[in-house]
């Protein structure tokens, strides 16, 4: 069975959610959302999932603050963030390029990152575009820092960075990424060439594993239907539903 790049990413992220009680998925996150739903199914419902702005995949009913309260209560085990820029210390920039506030490129804004990145134990950074434009040596604006000094209350932070080319795991003590797997069809040279920050190499860099046939069938069947609730266009484009 031929596995699409999006399917590989979904499977890769889903494997990072093992053992998590409750995963929350923010806006504009169809691939992480699919991954969370896949993990929910693989765990037979042990992993609970909340997908923002869905009809049937969310349980928030106490206003715009409830998601953040849940994170602060320690009820959210994993969350996803991205960045217009992400740097080698896992700092993320959702604001713009150039000098604040008159950036020459301006994005939407920092949303919940400047709180969730600190409080959710396992934050998975996801950015499909893996170029020197997105993965930079130093972000122009820190929406949320990758690490904090020890006196800062920070039970959470970055766990991994998943891109269209590879997977980096994050070492919080060293504040450094470590390349652990490269997606099929991509190479270490290509990763080096397209990454603007320095990173470590795992002792044993593997090819990112593909989902097996039953998992792929699960993904293309029930999960595709579920993700069509918040992301109909994505479900149509990737899974044809």
């Amino acid at each position, binding site marked *: 069975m031929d596995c699409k790049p999006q399917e590989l990413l979904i499977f890769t992220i889903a494997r990072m959610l093992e053992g998590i009680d409750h995963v929350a998925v923010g*806006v*504009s996150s169809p691939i992480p959302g699919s991954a969370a739903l896949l993990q929910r199914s693989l765990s037979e419902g042990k992993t609970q999932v909340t997908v923002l*702005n869905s009809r049937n995949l969310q349980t928030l*009913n*106490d*206003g*715009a*603050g*409830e998601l*953040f309260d849940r994170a*602060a209560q320690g009820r959210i085990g994993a969350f996803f963030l991205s960045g217009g820029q992400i740097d080698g210390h896992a700092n993320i920039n*959702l*604001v*713009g390029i150039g000098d*604040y*506030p*008159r*950036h*020459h490129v*301006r*994005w*939407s*804004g*920092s*949303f*919940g*990152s*400047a*709180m*969730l*990145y*600190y*409080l959710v134990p396992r934050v998975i950074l996801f950015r499909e575009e893996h170029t020197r434009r997105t993965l930079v040596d130093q972000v122009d*604006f*820190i*929406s*949320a*820092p990758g690490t*904090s*000094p020890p*006196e*800062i*209350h920070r039970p959470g932070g970055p766990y991994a960075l998943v891109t269209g080319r590879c997977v980096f795991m994050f070492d919080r003590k060293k504040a450094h990424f470590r390349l652990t797997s490269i997606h099929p069809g991509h190479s270490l040279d290509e990763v080096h060439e397209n990454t603007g920050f320095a990173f470590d190499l795992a002792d044993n860099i593997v090819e990112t594993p593909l989902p097996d046939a039953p998992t792929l069938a699960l993904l293309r069947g029930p999960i595709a239907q579920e993700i069509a609730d918040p992301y109909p*266009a994505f479900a149509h484009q990737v899974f044809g539903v």
Partner: protein
Amino acid sequence: MPEISVRELANRIPDGAKVAIPPSRSGVALAATCALIDRKARNLHLIAIPTSGIQADMLIGAGCVSVMECAGVTLDEHGQAGRFVETVKAGSITLRDSTCPALVSGLQAGEKGIPFMPMRGLIGSDLLKHRPDYKVIDNPMSDDPDPIVLLPAITPDIALFHAPLADRHGNVWIGNMRELMTMAHAARQTFVTVEEITDTDLMRDELRAPATIPALYITAIAHARAGSWPLGLQGCHDPDNEELARYAAASRDAESFAGWLARTQKRVTV
């Protein structure tokens, strides 16, 4: 309860007012927004609770806004909010960037009549560097050093939103959009447009009362069917995604935006 027209409602939101607005999925008063643009409102200080989309973009594009306080302005799946981005890059509005929970907590402090609310996070972010009104103190409850951010209370002059249902007494049913309750509690005045007005007393309706804003907090109500179009309204109507895509395209330059606005102003009855 004073039931007024959408035009009159817009007239009662004065230039320079601090106006709290909800996120795109929670009852955005777009008919009233058109009326605000129509009356050439100026120097509004918009406070998104905690983000905005087409509403802020339209008001910014039409020159109604001098300060924008938000955790993000986006047209979601339709892309960037073009007027917001251009205006920020041009430096012609004052931007107060923040993060979602900080705006919600600040509003909750306003609701509670307390001067500030602490929040975890933010320390080490450049957001904090540009917000001198956010203070860092050492947590007095902790024996060890424990820096924590204090957010000042947000007390909007006005809360403006669209809801499914009001009654003749001025009670407003908001369903699951609980942030609208906090907005009404925290704001000095609350203006609401609604899909429908019922003769039933919502506060005496066992099922609706728990999600009803009591009339006490409501300044005035205007009837505006599809008052959040082209955005949707939970339980009432879906977003008009084609129109939102047209808006997203138009918002990329000032001229197309003006064209869209002119067409829309004609279409939206105020």
